[in-house]
């Protein structure tokens, strides 16, 4: 009786790892979705650029290294600013900080948003009332204004601080989305069964609810990532970016401040502007692609 195939204990693998078939199916559609592939390709390309690019720059991106106002050439690939700073160096460092702020700001927003959403949706009752009220209050706050005021008061600003502030103001829509999904999932009998199995609340949330909305969570995190990048670019552009740092938004701000447009230094403002636009739009394209992969109704036949 002990040698029954597939009996618990017969294989050493963790029995909670399941869904191989579903995973294979998702992969099948993922590899055939051009939106997903293009979006992911561009995002990954920029990610690698931000990761590796700065390693090949042997000077500080803000250092005055070359002749002033040079158009792109063999030595300075993207030209120089009117002070003689290397724009390629600034660009790769800027891409790096863009991803940093995206991961960090988006990550904080994701953590807060999903935590609030899961707890509110699962617990219900007064907990839900309180958290929902909090969510709605933060949702209607003019986030940009709050960020401007809050960040303007800080002396030393870094990417981390900026990320935390962005994260703490952009989570509400994620919380609402996760809450509504949780509300519908929490009424399933298997959630009750997990409670009857003596599972803790957080275990139920992480192992019963979250895996059932994993696609939803992935897409939420991508949108939060893109949102954080855009918000950071906005803050940088109005001069509230990281002090002594480099970012794409900061490059734009400098370009505007030193009249790059009037002087015809197009290589100063086009790369950062295009960089932000391309990164964020490929994130959105990636998101649409993922949606089509996860949601059978949207698949193109």
């Amino acid at each position, binding site marked *: 009786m*002990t040698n029954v195939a597939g009996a618990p204990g017969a294989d050493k693998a963790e029995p909670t790892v*399941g869904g191989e078939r579903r995973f294979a199916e998702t992969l099948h559609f993922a590899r055939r979705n051009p939106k997903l592939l293009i979006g992911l390709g561009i995002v990954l390309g920029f990610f690698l650029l931000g990761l590796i690019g700065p390693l090949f720059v042997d000077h500080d991106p803000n250092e005055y290294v070359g002749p002033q106002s040079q158009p792109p050439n063999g030595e300075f690939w993207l030209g120089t600013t009117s002070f003689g700073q290397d724009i390629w160096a600034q660009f790769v460092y800027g891409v790096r900080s863009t991803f940093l702020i995206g991961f960090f700001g988006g990550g904080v927003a994701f953590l807060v948003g999903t935590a609030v959403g899961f707890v509110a949706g699962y617990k219900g009752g007064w907990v839900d009332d309180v958290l929902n009220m909090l969510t709605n209050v933060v949702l209607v706050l003019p986030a940009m204004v709050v960020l401007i005021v809050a960040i303007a008061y800080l002396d030393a600003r870094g990417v981390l601080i900026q990320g935390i502030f962005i994260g703490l103001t952009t989570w509400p829509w994620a919380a609402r989305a996760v809450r509504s999904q949780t509300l519908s999932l929490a009424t399933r009998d298997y959630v009750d069964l997990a409670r009857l199995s003596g599972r803790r609340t957080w275990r139920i949330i992480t192992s019963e609810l979250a895996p059932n909305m994993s696609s939803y969570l992935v897409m939420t995190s991508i949108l939060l990532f893109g949102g954080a990048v855009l918000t950071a670019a906005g803050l940088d552009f109005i001069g509230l970016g990281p002090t002594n740092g480099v970012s794409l938004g900061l490059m734009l701000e400098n370009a505007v401040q030193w009249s790059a447009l009037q002087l015809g230094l197009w290589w100063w403002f086009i790369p950062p502007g295009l960089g932000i636009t391309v990164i964020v739009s490929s994130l959105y394209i990636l998101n649409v692609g993922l949606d089509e992969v996860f949601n059978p109704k949207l698949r193109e036949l």
Partner: protein
Amino acid sequence: MTVSETLLELDHVHKVYRTGAFGGGRKRAVRDVNLTVRAGEVVSLIGESGSGKSTIGKMVLGLTSVSEGQIRYEGTDVSTIKGFKARKEYYRHVQGVFQDPFSCFNPIFKADRVFEMVRQSYAPDTSQEEWREKVLSSLDTVRLDPGNVLNKYPHQLSGGQLQRMLIARALLLDIKVLVADEIISMLDASTRIDVLNLLVDLKERGLGILFVTHDLSLGNYVSDTSVILHKGAVAEMGPTQRVFENPLHPYSRHLLSCVPQLHQTWAEVDAELAANPPEDVTLPTVPEGEYTAPLLEAEAGHFVGIDQT
């Protein structure tokens, strides 16, 4: 009837839901219900949809709170069982099986994960070997072939198999009370009788079973005590045989007359009922605005409740 240990006691239990915007409205789903479940006894809660029978099951399992009154398990008020550890201990002895077996399994995991969850929570020190023995013997009790059900996804199994797996899961624990919420309704006729007989086996092992059903004949088949619920209140309660042979409450009579008979047509049933009208019983009444539901003992152990129309 032998007097055995009282396991579960419902004492003037109410459940009131807030409804509408801002929770202004009130809906009394369960109204002043008293009943006891003893060891080795099957108590059927019979009622139509919305009569509060599943809510009672949920309250016993602590899945929803009790608005008024007490549910006592071995003398302890269930609502005082607070904190994770205490609840976990409670579930070691009180378990439930739900109506829809397909919704009881998380679709993205294999079905036997329900056993593994029990092991992780209640027997983390048991060796894999020992646990496998336990699972296999439990599956044997519910007459499932382990080779057919283990290592499969829920969608690969039938409703009857899943339902019996849930019962097997409950048996892994040291249970004393089993709340069986409509466990038969999703099964086809041939598996139905298997599961019913399984319940009888469990009863003989000394379990107290709260059997929630809308099906009168099933209630009649397995239970010792029947409780007929109408609009959240007890309409009639007593030994199953008495309740079915001599229904006293107009609602129970109506319910019983609705059961299709194999050997009689509706017209014959109606004619027979008209020929021998049942003797009327004085039903207890409650003053307007009160939400109690007193019971009247019409004969030994056989109670009738208020009439709500």
